[in-house]
């Protein structure tokens, strides 16, 4: 099994198994089915977006606007439903709004050629501003029961819709990245866009597809968030982009592009979720939880660099 994993992924697997063992021995409630579902459910929107963010970062781009698009889509849904729009229609409008937001990103990045860091940073502010204008300083709720049921109750047995979506997208996007022609283009462009362009790849098209997909999935997750909590505010999903990017980087995806796997990101997600859940069940306060995860991330960024440095020095000596 481990033969198929990179050394980094093997390390992640070990950390994950250690976390599982710790949780199971110190928190008796940890292994219950409901807790295992809650563990995913409490962060489900972030982890779904992390899947598509993996493709974006492997492509040597970044999308900082995902959380603002989630917020915008949730706010728009709250606004439309409270203005009397049928919820089904409101959902379609919100997904369309997500596509429009993605198109704005895509045109500026892939056609005009502005770096995605700059474009999506601007849109992080812009889309969040729109969300705040729609909801103002209040919260909007009163969604139809079928919407909140979809967000809060099990669809197949105890498993809710959003969790099914997560696993479906995990497989779908994993196959796309590692087993399809499009995925190979994503990786080649991420390794060296210039070379890819000279080899005849349609770089702009691949990037356009990625930013459209990223925005569409973010808009969908904004709706899932609204349904799960039953009401939305202007600051819904504020700051989520950092958690999402963190999950992807801990998964071993290179911020410079070209390298990374869906397996690594999945393991990274499992580690963060299980750590949070275990610490919660052990009654650790929010400050300690943030501290522990912070230390883990610092270590995860430092370790590979130190190792590379060490290897380079050894080679020089030899």
């Amino acid at each position, binding site marked *: 099994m481990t033969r198929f994993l990179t050394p980094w992924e093997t390390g992640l697997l070990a950390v994950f198994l250690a976390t599982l063992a710790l949780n199971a021995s110190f928190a008796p*409630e940890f292994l*219950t089915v*409901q*807790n295992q579902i*809650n563990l995913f459910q*409490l962060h489900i929107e972030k982890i779904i977006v992390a899947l598509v963010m993996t493709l974006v970062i492997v492509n040597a781009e970044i999308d900082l606007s995902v959380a603002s698009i989630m917020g915008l889509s949730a706010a728009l849904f709250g606004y439309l439903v409270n203005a009397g729009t049928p919820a089904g229609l409101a959902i379609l409008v919100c997904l369309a709004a997500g596509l429009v937001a993605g198109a704005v990103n895509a045109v500026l990045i892939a056609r005009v050629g502005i770096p995605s860091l700059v474009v999506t940073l601007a849109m992080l502010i812009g889309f969040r501003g729109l969300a705040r204008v729609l909801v103002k*300083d*209040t*919260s909007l*709720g009163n969604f139809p029961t079928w919407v*909140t049921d979809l*967000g*809060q109750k099990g669809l197949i047995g105890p498993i809710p819709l959003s969790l099914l979506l997560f696993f479906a997208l995990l497989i779908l996007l994993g196959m796309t990245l590692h087993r399809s022609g499009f995925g190979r283009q994503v990786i080649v462009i991420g390794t060296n866009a210039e070379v890819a362009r000279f080899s005849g790849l349609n770089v702009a098209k691949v990037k356009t597809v990625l930013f459209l997909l990223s925005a569409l999935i973010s808009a969908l997750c904004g709706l899932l968030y609204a349904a*799960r*909590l*039953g*009401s939305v*505010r*202007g*600051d819904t999903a504020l*700051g989520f982009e950092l958690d999402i990017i963190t999950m992807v980087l801990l998964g071993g995806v290179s911020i410079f592009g070209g390298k990374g796997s869906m397996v690594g990101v999945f393991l990274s997600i499992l580690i963060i979720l299980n750590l*949070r*859940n275990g610490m*919660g*069940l052990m*009654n*650790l*306060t*929010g*400050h300690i939880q*943030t501290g522990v995860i912070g230390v883990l991330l610092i270590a995860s960024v430092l370790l590979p660099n130190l190792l590379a440095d060490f290897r380079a020095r050894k080679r020089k000596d030899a």
Partner: protein
Amino acid sequence: MMMKLTGLAFAAGLATLMGSTAMAEPVTATPGQQVNAVLLPKFLGILPFDQANRGAQEAAAELGSTGKLEFIGPTPENSAAGQIEMLTNATTQKQNVVMLSNNAGDQIAPAAEAAQAAGTRVVTWDSPIPSGKGESFFVAQVDFGSIGTVMADMAYDLAGGAGEFAVLSASPDAANQNAWIDMMKEALKGDKYKDLKLVDVVYGNDQSEESYNKALGLVDKYPDLKVIMAPTTVGIVAAAKAMQDEGLCEKVKVSGLGLPAEMVSYTLNGCAPQFALWSFVDLGYLTYHASYALATGAIKGEVGEEFTAGRMGTFKIEEDPGRPGARRVLMGPFTVYTKDNVEAAAN
């Protein structure tokens, strides 16, 4: 067998009878039972919530609960999502009762309903669930209507009866602050306040730096501003410090809800001559007593039930006038602090 059943039925009937007789009298919960409880404030790291914890611990020791009382909370910047996560985890742990100062508005209602369905009671204090969904009852520090009047009166006094004032609140979804501001707006409709003008409501999210900047922003935006009213212990200190740092205390007075220990210097130097508050220690103490009674089944959380709360005496569950369909236990009253009494209270 028949006899036994009849006997049981009789005993049950007697118990019901005794139960209903007891309803008229205040109920005192039997001490020494096992109640596992979580005190969940909006976030950790500010004095009022530590004081509430001290009161709750005092009550737990007094009642001799053989269960645990945990004091856990999220970080301020992750307050809403963190509270939802912690309430969900408490449900998983099968805690008997969670005492919640809600900072997530109605977004926490689904998690609270799930908790109740799994047998974990949710009692709110300090800040309720606006819709009342998923909440057994709310332990209110003071009558929300009377806070509105006191805030209007303090603004009136400090502005000299006329002029512009603004509100610096906590987070936009803090149910308690929102209710007080609404009540203040109601009070301002009175003839007495016709020359007093509320020009803006801004939110510092109970973060010192953000509140400080929002206070300065108000002064820049409204050159004729006379009073900043901050119904939050974080906001009022930040605003008072901002006015002091900028040398504006002669022009703009700060008031609202604050802790004497944190406000004493600003009250004595005239930056915040008048503010109000209640005891958070007592609020924590009463909340634990009420929650213990509820978790042990001594009370059911229905309107009209009365219970004793140790040194604080007898309390009654009633309809919450501010939230149709929801119930509250009213603590009250509060104290207005000035330079005459602030030093004594600060120690």
